[in-house]
């Protein structure tokens, strides 16, 4: 009987990986539940171990299991060959996701065998300032979307004087079109633990929290299991690997509030309060969780750190373009034929991602719009597909890279409806603290409805532009501040969708 791998990733499970794994186990095979390789369009992806490497089949259903020639890894209509040779995987630059899909996610020995904890070992022998210097050298910028230099943030916390400091991981991945954080937590959680522990040693923190959204029950369970295993193996907790360094890590569940992905709202939530946004200053690096200096980073920022420590900041910096250094795990989502996770150096074009890796739309119809960077990101028209993925290039085009989520829409999309939804979503999820966001979003829905109905169209378009300006300038955080981005981009690039009664009358 063969040793086979079937992902435990919740996306794979959502299309039947558990049933396939059970059928394989019932047939007498040794089944390992690995993370997902990120070729989500091929899930459930079954890999069989051979002397020449792992041979993949996919997407496999329970009905296919009996016919899979696993003993010989031979021909079959679902045979994909060596998974590493698959163009979708081969053409990526996987630094963060190098191990995801290969190992049993919660096995410390698997992790160590595949290069895990090399970064932490190095960090344990360095002064905090030297770790911060390495991260600064790498050019890593916050992967949550804002793109703030991680090294500078860490230095602020390092230099702050306090008897207690904290490390908080923002795993409230609420943006539609994003799932890279989830895949890290379900597929390689020990890497996140390692990255957070390195941060703790760098700045002198002894406690940390991973704030995970409640919509991710699998990620929560896997993180807890990984934390317990890392602690048992002496990589977490008191006196890490016999040194005088200690770091205690706890999982906190969110409760279905999108706004808690905003860093100060997340701090309030971890403190057990309503997730309302705090005014800045003071910045969390100086007065964060429980008023103490706190490093807050996204999952992908922490997850990039073990590589940076193990291979050096310069090795990471070698990838990328301009001031966007390193790689970003892009997430191909929505109406796309080959959706999944594609980690590439910054500078890859939207076209290479969406048409090259993604293979165009799922429906086969032409691409009309692509929302990049989550619900607060701009809708990019198909004419701008050749833009390179780079923080500054996108900012110049009044768009944003954000967390690397790429949602494709075909020609059937109604952009006025998408603009309305952006305002509606803001109205549902606003924390209510500041007026431009709380009230502005509801007024935004109403004004868009009037525009679509053809009521004083030009005057209402001006009013909407004015409202968007107020929200952009007057909101406390990015929720109200960036909701105008998808709205205005829809009007800018797809004005015809806001002019339907006029067009109908003309026709």
């Amino acid at each position, binding site marked *: 009987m063969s040793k086979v791998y079937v992902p435990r990733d*919740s*996306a794979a*499970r*959502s*299309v039947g990986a558990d049933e396939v794994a059970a059928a394989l186990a019932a047939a007498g095979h040794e089944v390992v539940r690995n993370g997902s390789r990120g070729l*989500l*369009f091929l*899930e459930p992806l079954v890999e069989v171990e051979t002397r020449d490497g792992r041979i993949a089949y996919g997407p496999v259903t329970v009905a296919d299991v009996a016919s899979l020639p696993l003993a010989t890894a031979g021909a079959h209509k679902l045979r994909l060959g060596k998974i590493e040779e698959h163009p979708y995987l081969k053409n990526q630059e996987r630094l963060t996701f190098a191990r995801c899909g290969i190992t049993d996610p919660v096995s410390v020995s698997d992790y160590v065998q595949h290069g895990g904890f090399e970064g932490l070992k190095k960090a344990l022998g360095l002064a905090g300032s030297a770790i911060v210097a390495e991260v600064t050298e790498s050019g890593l910028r916050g992967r949550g979307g804002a793109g703030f230099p991680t090294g500078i943030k860490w230095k602020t916390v390092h230099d702050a004087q306090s008897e207690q400091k904290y490390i908080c991981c923002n795993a409230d*991945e*609420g*943006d*539609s*079109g*994003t*799932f890279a954080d*989830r895949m890290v937590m379900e597929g390689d959680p020990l890497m996140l633990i390692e990255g957070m522990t390195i941060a703790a040693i760098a700045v002198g923190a002894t406690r940390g929290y991973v704030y995970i959204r*409640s*919509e*991710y*029950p*699998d990620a929560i369970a896997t993180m807890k299991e990984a934390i317990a295993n890392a602690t048992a193996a002496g990589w977490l907790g008191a006196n890490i690997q016999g040194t005088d360094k200690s770091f205690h890590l706890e999982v*906190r*569940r*969110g*409760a*279905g*509030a*999108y706004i808690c992905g905003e860093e100060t709202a997340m701090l309030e*939530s*971890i*403190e*057990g*309060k*309503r*997730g*309302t946004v705090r005014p800045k200053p003071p910045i969390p690096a100086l007065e964060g969780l*429980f008023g103490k200096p706190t490093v807050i980073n996204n999952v992908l920022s922490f997850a990039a750190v073990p590589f940076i420590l193990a291979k050096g900041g310069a090795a990471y910096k070698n990838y990328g373009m301009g001031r966007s250094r390193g790689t970003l795990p892009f*997430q191909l*989502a*929505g*109406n*796309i034929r080959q*959706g*999944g*996770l594609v980690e590439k150096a910054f500078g890859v074009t939207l076209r290479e991602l969406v048409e090259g890796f993604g293979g165009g739309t*799922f429906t086969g119809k032409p691409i009309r719009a692509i*929302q990049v960077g989550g*619900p607060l990101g701009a809708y990019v028209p198909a004419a701008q597909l050749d833009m390179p993925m780079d923080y500054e290039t996108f900012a110049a085009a009044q768009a944003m890279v954000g967390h690397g*989520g790429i*949602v*494709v*829409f*075909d020609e059937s*999309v109604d952009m006025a409806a*998408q603009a309305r*939804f952006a305002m509606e*979503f803001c109205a*549902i*999820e606003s*924390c209510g603290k500041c007026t431009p966001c709380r009230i502005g979003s509801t007024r935004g829905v109403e004004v868009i409805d009037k525009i679509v109905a053809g009521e004083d169209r030009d005057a209402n378009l001006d009013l909407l532009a004015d409202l968007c300006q107020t929200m952009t300038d007057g909101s406390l955080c990015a929720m109200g501040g960036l909701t105008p981005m998808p709205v205005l981009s829809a009007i800018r690039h797809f004005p015809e969708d806001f002019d339907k009664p006029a067009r109908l009358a003309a026709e």
Partner: protein
Amino acid sequence: MSNKTTLLDLSPREATAAREIALRYGNRPDALLEILHDLQEQLGFIPEAALPALAKALNLSRAEVHGVVTFYHDYRREPAGRHVIKVCRAEACQSMGANELVSMIERYLKVKLGQTTADGAITVEAAYCLGNCALSPAVMVDERLVGRVDAQKFEKIVAECRS
């Protein structure tokens, strides 16, 4: 005031459950969200009677506890159906027909999002991203994620929930 006293007296089980869970977390006020999650798992919802008990245990005001319970979408003030189906309404799922899926579901179950079917089997709710955006449209049945949902798959889910 008298109304609240009556609720307290009528619901010792709920108040006791709240106190026990709070104690498990060392009565730490920062653990309030975790405590509420556990309480909801145990009782199916957050009963009014639990709020003063929690406030006392955690040394918070009742207004603070009430504020937290009402802020977060997850916490229910009344029991749900035996199963909860969350339907993703966010952009990635919209691009794959989530709005049509929602209409189909509402017609099929004869309820609106946020409501429970007449037989008490299913509460159907909106969710804004389940993190399954490459396999849209997605729903979550209790804690089980389902991708590439169509009418046929949904009917099967409903049949399982009702069996």
